């Protein structure tokens, strides 16, 4: 006897394979590592947007609210947040450019992809060091 489907979604009528099939890959693969790290850093940056908008709203809301925000944003905890956002920003930027190059159809051979993975890691580390120097060490910053 036919039972009406519980969901109207055709895809859920049967147990179909859903992406991503994480368990079938070796987690040590550089291809997987660079890809999943791009996602993780992207999500971190999404959370970072909250910090950015909070800061902008604090500026717009007057001197007292900005003073309060500055107190929060210059705390030791937020130093950690900035370090995380810095790493996420640099990596996501560089890895994103690699994805844009791929979209033109270039660099998709295995050897090329392996080499560009190394380039992405090297360039983002360099970028992290440069921007990190200005963020944490150059001049006495208020926050």
């Amino acid at each position: 006897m036919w039972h009406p489907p519980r969901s109207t979604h055709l895809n859920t009528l049967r147990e179909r394979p859903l992406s991503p099939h994480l368990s079938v890959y070796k987690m040590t693969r550089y291809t997987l590592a660079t890809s999943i790290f791009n996602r993780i850093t992207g999500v971190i940056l999404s959370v970072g947007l909250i910090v950015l908008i909070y800061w902008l709203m604090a500026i717009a809301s007057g001197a007292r609210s900005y003073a309060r925000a500055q107190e929060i944003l210059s705390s030791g905890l937020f130093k950690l947040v900035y370090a995380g956002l810095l790493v996420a920003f640099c990596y996501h930027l560089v890895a994103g450019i690699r994805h844009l190059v791929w979209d033109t159809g270039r660099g998709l051979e295995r050897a090329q992809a392996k080499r560009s993975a190394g380039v992405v890691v090297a360039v983002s580390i360099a970028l992290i060091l440069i921007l990190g120097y200005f963020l944490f060490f150059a001049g006495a910053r208020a926050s």
Partner: protein
Amino acid sequence: MKSLRSPLGRVVGLGAAKEGVHHWWLQRLTSIALVPLAVWFAISILSLPSLDRVTVIAWMAQSWTALLLIVFVLVATYHSQLGVRVVVEDYVHNSGMKTLTLVILTFAHALLAVAGVFAILKVAFGGAA
């Protein structure tokens, strides 16, 4: 082999999700825009002499700064919305939970975008001095 797609379906080219490459294409467009915008934003913030209120307002109230900041906030929130949407679609398998998460994230991003633009405009038009 004869294709199972109808001639109309092939011409419209929208596929099973009924939106074709729309999401993918917007993700690329916002990515391309964000490369210079994000670099500009990072350099601008890091080259401010200090982050006290007077300095930040003087910087934000400049027309080009305000304009680029608005574009940056809009493109970044849109790119973020497109990105987290795919992440939720990939990892949240419960259909009700997935819809609820997507609704919340969409509202949150809309709120962030509007709040950001509002704050920048308020400062730019001298409403925060």
